[in-house]
């Protein structure tokens, strides 16, 4: 590649062609502040709107200051980041942003985790110089999942890039103009009336608290304090490898034992594992797959664990609505089993059982409100809080997480196999399903259970497995833009798969909308995935159908796999929704 020679603050720099001034400056250890700019290479997200102007630098021969994030280096360029003019201009840009930003940092959900706050501190801003009109827009919590506070928006439009280009859901656009500009859904509609799938990826890239989850912490404290209720909790596969980050543990570190101990200390009556639900999901889904294959049902079968992805197909691909598996998602399965199987076994009034799910996900908050996900007039799951919200509760309760002892999940919904652990990462659900389907179809033991071709961060992955002489083709997509490509090909009859796994978030649940903010650091996400594969590898039982407690559940309570009772409790249906 041809090299470009320039100087930055007098230091000679050899940069690659096409590099921006921001990246070239890093070579000589100069950090130019940025705010709106975000480049997440692995998921093809580049936000280069140059709208915040906090990266302004002087370029010799150029009259105006240049935005370093969007200006490519050229041969012989002389850049200065340290002149009084540049330093003052950058400071003024931040001061102007602050002149129309609420000053409620002390009580803001992004306090100490806000990129605007950070940059104001770094530039040494001590007062907000400019006074004038301040925005006062309607706040939106209509969806019960995603909270929009346009007053905190700095118009960086990262959410727009994420939603429109990576996820292709297309909710946001800058609307109106001048001071009135806001980033909004079409026609200023409340989120609940849009085709938003609540993946929450916009919250992962939002630099401020303009986009966050709707918090359900208060509701959870309330049920925990009610002596009359039997409050049970479950934890998704992925959060056991992300929770430790807050406590300075290495990314991907398995903190299952401490997490269980922490939840008991918060006052939950039982601590169950969503992974048990995941094993049940696989048993049902693999069975459904084999049935469809045998009886000439519609192919491919699509996994349906991800509520964002389910809502996406409902809005965007009405013709394909009958191909996802009818299986409920693992936490809904665990929810309904708590209020039926567990309640009956331990003689507890199901009306008094409150199920709380700790999820990496914002869409799960919406999922539990879907009216068809109820049994006997009771919601399968009552409340959902994200990994971030759990961290908040733990600190409120003064729990010294790092020094907690390791504890075990409660029976009878606490044991799981390695197949369930990998549900939290892209490729994991289909790999888990393959392990079971293979053994059931061939009646042979699968010796090497690792399907490496469905792992990793590639947007679209493929694998084919020889089962009884038949080539079973598998497809995997993560990130809804990739899913859209795959679905379009299926709709046109150009792609021929037997089974497909789709997760809405790039990387899967380990990069879910409710996970600790990674600020574009995809290496962190990869470490989380590696953590899950390590847990799987360390387990003796790695196939869902070998889970002894799942076997017991069917024997004692559900009856046949895919049978009448299983259908009544563990399966659901989907509906076509408007595209708006």
């Amino acid at each position, binding site marked *: 590649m041809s090299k470009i020679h320039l100087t930055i603050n007098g230091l000679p720099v050899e940069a690659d062609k096409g590099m921006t001034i921001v990246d070239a400056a890093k070579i000589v250890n100069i950090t130019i502040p940025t705010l709106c700019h975000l480049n997440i290479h692995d998921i093809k997200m580049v936000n280069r709107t140059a709208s915040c102007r906090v990266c302004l630098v002087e370029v010799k021969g150029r009259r105006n200051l240049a935005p370093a994030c969007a200006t490519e280096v050229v041969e012989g360029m002389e850049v200065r980041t340290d002149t009084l003019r540049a330093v003052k201009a950058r400071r003024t840009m931040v001061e102007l942003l602050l002149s129309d930003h609420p000053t409620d940092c002390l009580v803001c959900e992004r306090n100490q985790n806000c990129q605007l706050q950070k940059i104001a501190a770094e530039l040494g801003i001590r007062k907000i110089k400019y006074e004038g009109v301040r925005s006062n827009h309607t706040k939106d919590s209509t969806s019960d999942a995603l909270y929009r506070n346009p007053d905190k928006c700095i118009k960086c439009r990262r959410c727009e890039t994420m939603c*429109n280009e990576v996820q292709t859901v*297309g*909710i*946001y*656009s800058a609307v109106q103009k001048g001071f009135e500009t806001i980033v909004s859904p*079409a*026609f200023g509609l409340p989120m609940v009336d849009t085709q938003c799938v609540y993946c929450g990826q916009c919250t992962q890239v939002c630099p401020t608290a303009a986009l966050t989850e709707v918090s359900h912490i208060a509701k959870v404290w309330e049920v925990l304090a009610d002596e009359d209720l039997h409050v049970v909790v479950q934890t998704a596969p992925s959060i056991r490898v992300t929770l430790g980050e807050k406590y300075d543990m290495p990314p991907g570190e398995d903190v299952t034992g401490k997490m269980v101990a922490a939840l008991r200390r918060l006052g939950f009556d039982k601590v169950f594992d969503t992974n048990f639900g995941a094993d049940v999901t696989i048993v049902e889904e693999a069975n459904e797959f084999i049935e469809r294959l045998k009886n000439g049902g519609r192919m491919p079968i699509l996994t349906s664990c991800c509520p964002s992805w389910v809502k996406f197909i409902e809005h965007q691909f009405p013709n394909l609505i009958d191909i996802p598996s009818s299986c409920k998602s693992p936490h809904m399965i665990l929810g309904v089993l708590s209020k039926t199987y567990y309640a009956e076994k331990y003689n507890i009034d199901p009306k008094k059982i409150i199920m709380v799910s700790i999820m990496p996900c914002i869409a799960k908050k919406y999922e539990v409100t879907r009216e068809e996900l109820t049994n006997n007039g009771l919601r399968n799951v009552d409340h959902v809080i994200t990994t971030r919200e759990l961290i908040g509760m733990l600190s409120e309760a003064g729990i010294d997480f790092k020094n907690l002892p390791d504890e075990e999940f409660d029976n009878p919904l606490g044991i799981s196999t390695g197949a369930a652990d990998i549900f939290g990462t892209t490729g994991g659900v289909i790999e888990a399903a393959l392990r079971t389907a293979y053994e059931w179809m061939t009646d042979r033991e699968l010796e090497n259970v690792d399907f490496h071709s469905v792992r990793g961060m590639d947007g679209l992955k493929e694998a084919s497995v020889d089962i009884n002489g038949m080539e079973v083709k598998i497809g995997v997509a993560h990130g809804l833009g990739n899913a859209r490509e795959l679905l379009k090909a299926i709709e046109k009859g150009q792609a021929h798969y037997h089974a497909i796994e789709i997760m809405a978030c790039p990387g899967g649940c380990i990069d879910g909308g409710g996970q600790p903010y990674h600020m574009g650091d995809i290496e962190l996400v990869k470490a989380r995935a590696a953590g899950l594969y390590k847990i799987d590898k360390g387990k003796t039982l790695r196939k869902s159908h070998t889970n002894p407690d799942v076997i017991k559940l069917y024997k004692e309570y559900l009856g046949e796999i895919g049978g009448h009772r299983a259908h009544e409790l563990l399966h659901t249906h989907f509906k076509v929704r408007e*595209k*708006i």
Partner: protein
Amino acid sequence: MGEYKVDAEKLKKLGDFIEGLEYAEGELINILREAQEMFGYLPMDVQLFIARKLGIPAAKVYGVATFYSYFTMTPRGKHVISVCLGTACFVKGADRIVEEFRKQLNIKEGTISEDGMYTLDSIRCVGACGLAPVVIVDGKVHGRVKPEDVAAIIRGINEDESGEQMLVKQNVQ
């Protein structure tokens, strides 16, 4: 889905117009202009129709429609009175002209009169600064307008209106 609460015939025409464009994706502004010509304004369903037809987010269409003051999402009166509030016109007292129309027609700027006859609008610089302040009525330019001219302009609209009605009557007879 697919049920739009607007004139189906006009919508079909709009669809034909879009299909007739060689590179429709790049002509959103042109399409919105055509749609506003047909419907008089840009109701939500028309914008949705355009978004689906072009395969782009409705939010994008709405973003463009709200960015340009030329586009409107509220129905227009039979007669549109646009007062230029560009710098030159403003300096020459355009705000007083707006005030006068507002008083005489009893409507707010940017809204439609109760009888559906008038819309009072402001525009930004029509490029005829030599004629400031400028008022455009149904496409006809009035230059160097003074507040005391407003009554005559309104009278002019009403005279055209009654003339039109008489023509209609004669045709009926």
